[in-house]
């Protein structure tokens, strides 16, 4: 898990790129907990999202889970290959398994997210 990532309590990670764009994905903890992913629905490019709002859904054999935007902004890129290759989420969750890129409305919102240590404490305290 790279040190430059930030995390939402709902298990999405964020990596800040250039020009206010942020790459968003799902943590390896969440992917592992869901197990046996079968479907994914992603938003269209251009969709506006608010922090904490659902922007997509993922289904495993037993559960449908919402994907929550960790920051507010506009979806500027979507990993359209992902729904057809869901195994990528497990194999490379912080690289090829990225989900969307969001152009932040307010970069200060990143300060509301957890750093790696805080996120590891959060998931470490949750029963497996």
């Amino acid at each position, binding site marked *: 898990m790279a040190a430059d990532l930030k995390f939402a309590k*709902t298990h999405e990670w964020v990596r800040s790129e250039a020009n206010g764009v942020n790459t968003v994905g799902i943590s390896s903890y969440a992917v592992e*907990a*869901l*197990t*046996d992913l*079968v*479907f994914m*629905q992603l938003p269209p490019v251009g969709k506006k999202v608010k922090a*904490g709002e659902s922007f997509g*859904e993922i*289904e*495993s*054999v*037993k*559960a*449908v*889970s*919402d994907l*929550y935007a960790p920051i507010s902004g506009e979806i500027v890129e979507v990993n359209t290959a992902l729904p057809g290759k869901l195994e990528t989420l497990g194999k490379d969750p912080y690289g090829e398994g990225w989900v969307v890129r969001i152009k932040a409305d307010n970069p200060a919102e990143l300060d509301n997210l957890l750093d790696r240590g805080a996120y590891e404490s959060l998931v470490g305290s*949750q*029963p*497996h």
Partner: protein
Amino acid sequence: MNTLTIWWDTAADGPTNMAADECLAAEAERRGSLLMRFYDWSTTTISLGGFQKIEDARRVGEIRGIPLVRRPSGGGAIVHGSDLTYAAAVPKSHPWGASPQVFYDALHGAMVEALAEHEIDARPYPAAGALPSGVDGAVGSDARSVPDESRFFCFDRRAAGDLVMAGPTEGSFSKIMGSAQRRLAGVVLQHGSLLLHGNTGVGGAARHLGVTDLLADKRPPESVGLSRAWGRRIATALGGSLHEQEASFLSAHHRDIAALALRFREDRWTARR
């Protein structure tokens, strides 16, 4: 945290039941504890899994003309009307809320014990050493040659922790209980169904064998008694107390439920995939 609160509701239509379950999830998050609701359906109804395609439902001739509602939870379609339907909601901060399998296994494990009280032998799938490949006894289904998520009906699918009983033929097993979840930001809503008997409102591939059909010479369980026994077993597994509510959840929350039900009545929701 360690309490279980249960409501028994009268029959309602699909949108009302789905709205009540969303309301139950919000209430569980607010209270910080496990809540359950048992309910009936005002008429035979098909509930579709959250990711199932409406075209797939329209292709199944046996369910044509039957009311359809889309669940927020995952899994396959269920023909309701001859099952024990439940919704359970638990905060994600609860020990049972962190991962899908933990909650699934906790409730299904307690049901195995409740059924055993009625001398019914059910077990979680895969039952060790008891399920030869390609034999499962489900009506209208064959071997596991088709990916489970592409099977339309819940009771034709198999996932770890589903409950099965000995089937109608030697060495075969039939699924009698399945559940599926919607995992929201702070709370988990789990829907599930124990098939009490085959639904006479449908035929062909839409009808599956239920507990009563699989019992050779034993009395079938009575649903309220069984749900009570299940609740007690769940409370024991929690290490906490059981609170059975006299009033129905539907009546206690009727305004919120009526407002939430509007979404589940819309084609925009039902035909969203």
